[in-house]
């Protein structure tokens, strides 16, 4: 029982990160129909940026803030220089562009940062808390709490602010949104910026637990994508649930089956969802018209 609970805590922790990545995917996908492969690299920028800025002497909150801002700027640049010029390209071409962007960001990170693993000190100490026979790191609580705050904040923004409603309108029908006077380009940029921020926050929160490196982006992107697909592409609630599920499945798989194939869980999930329930658990937006 204790072991089970332990796995649940681990699974929810890493699942919370996948949920945030998936949420970022969903936001961009809803606004622009683009599958943004560079989503995972925002996580990396948040983590690596904070590490290097604290090493340079800045206090953690300041470093974290600047790292988030940096991620947002990269997100905006991605939209402005890679996505916008390619308007009208096929979905596959757009994926390739974001893959290229991801590789580019990774390549630059390699130069600006370095190729080592890095960590951050836990925010409130690393003494494990005992709960129901299992232990949980305080940092895990930070991760899950942080994710909750982000999700709640995003929900409040989308449902209860005018700008948020404009984002929803653009997601529902871009042409109609344009016709009622919404500046769609600004909304798209906003979507990219907010996604980047969400990713960066996730990265900062999780680095004390999982470490960070210039190339962690790819796996986060793939798993976040698996989570978004599992929950239903384009469905924010699905993204969160999907993320938690993938995290749990992965951790339980590693715990009870095989730890070497831990990463395979997400890929197998992708294949199963695509082949058997392409609309995901909560029914995403319509699948490609045949």
């Amino acid at each position: 029982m204790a072991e089970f609970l332990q796995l649940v805590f681990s699974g929810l922790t890493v699942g919370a990160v996948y949920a945030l990545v998936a949420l970022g995917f969903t936001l961009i996908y809803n606004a622009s129909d683009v599958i943004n492969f560079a989503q995972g690299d925002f996580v990396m920028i948040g983590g690596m940026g904070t590490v290097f800025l604290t090493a340079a002497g800045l206090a953690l909150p300041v470093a974290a803030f600047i790292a988030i801002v940096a991620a947002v700027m990269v997100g905006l640049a991605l939209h402005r220089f890679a996505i916008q010029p390619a308007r009208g390209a096929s979905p596959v071409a757009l994926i390739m562009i974001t893959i290229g962007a991801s590789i580019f960001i990774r390549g630059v990170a390699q130069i600006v940062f370095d190729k080592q693993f890095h960590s951050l000190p836990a925010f409130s100490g690393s003494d494990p808390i005992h709960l129901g026979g299992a232990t949980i790191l305080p940092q895990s609580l930070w991760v899950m709490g942080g994710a909750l705050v982000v999700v709640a904040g995003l929900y409040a923004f989308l449902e209860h602010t005018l700008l948020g409603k404009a984002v929803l309108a653009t997601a529902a029908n871009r042409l109609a949104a344009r016709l009622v006077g919404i500046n769609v380009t600004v909304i798209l940029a906003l979507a990219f910026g907010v996604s980047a921020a969400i990713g960066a926050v996730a990265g900062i929160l999780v680095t004390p637990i999982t470490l960070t490196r210039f190339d962690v982006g790819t796996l986060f992107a793939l798993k976040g994508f698996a989570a978004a697909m599992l929950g239903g592409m384009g469905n924010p609630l699905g993204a969160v649930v999907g993320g938690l599920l993938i995290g749990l499945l992965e951790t339980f798989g590693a715990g009870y089956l095989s730890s070497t194939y831990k990463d395979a869980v997400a890929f197998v999930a992708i294949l199963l969802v695509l082949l058997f329930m392409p609309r995901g658990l909560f029914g995403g937006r319509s699948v490609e018209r045949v």
Partner: protein
Amino acid sequence: MLVALLRSRLAALLLLAAIMALFPLIAPSAFYLRVAALVWIFALAALGLTILMGYAGQVSLGHAGFLGLGAYGVAIGPAHLGLPPLLSLVLAAALAGLIAYLVGRPILRLKGYYLAIATLGFGMILALVFNSESAVTGGPDGMAVARMTVLGWRITGALNWYWVSAGALLVGAWLALNLQASPSGRALRALHDSEVAAAGVGVNVAAKKLSAFVIGAVYAAFAGGLLASLNGLITPEASSFMQSIELVAMVIIGGLGSVFGAVVGAAFLVVLPQALTAFQEYEQAVLGLLIMVFMIFLPDGIVPTIRRWLLERLS
């Protein structure tokens, strides 16, 4: 006359053969021959991918998985099963084809980015298997590969490998060019443009897509086997996500659906790291930039753009 030449399959093949024959005469050292051999090998893999992506219009972001199958086949055959290397190569290619057939049937029902992601997932699972089954594959450090022997003759030395890989590419190019100008080729190109209409004239769209997928897999497996034998070593990197993306980049940069495009694209991406040895750390950034620039501004790729430009000037 020139227009006919630009369109002629035989001319394309002869041009390629001529380039292959002349290069050793101007290559300054064995190193250049080795790089060229790598170009021919990756061009072969890219050619398989261009048949799938360029002719049939299906996307695969996991193609390196098949490359890995061929490579590990050639390593495992002699090392664990006591089979001669050449037979291992053929069997590995056949296995790749079989796996492509089995996996392709369900996966190719998907379209657009769903297909892209599914192939990506498939490729990653293969790479993970190669990385994890250490007892068989040597794990992350890979395994040594026995020298390739053809009818008793051990292939060693840069020049010999140059001719072997050039020959393999020439055969692959010949097959691909034949396919392009045949009923099957027309059917593939048709389903690329409109699946509904292709079905409407009686094309068995599912079967044709599958055949392109299998052909692409076999090409990649042969290339992988040659690569492993050439290097004497194989690691899971050869079947990684990055390798799959590089193959797609070759096809996009060189030109989708063009035999010469696969060669040009392969040359681009094989020579790039060599050219950047001084700036090795910039390699990834440059690759990423290249992909973005080509996909945004030159989505047709180098060779078709040049050919079209030439045709317009001459008409």
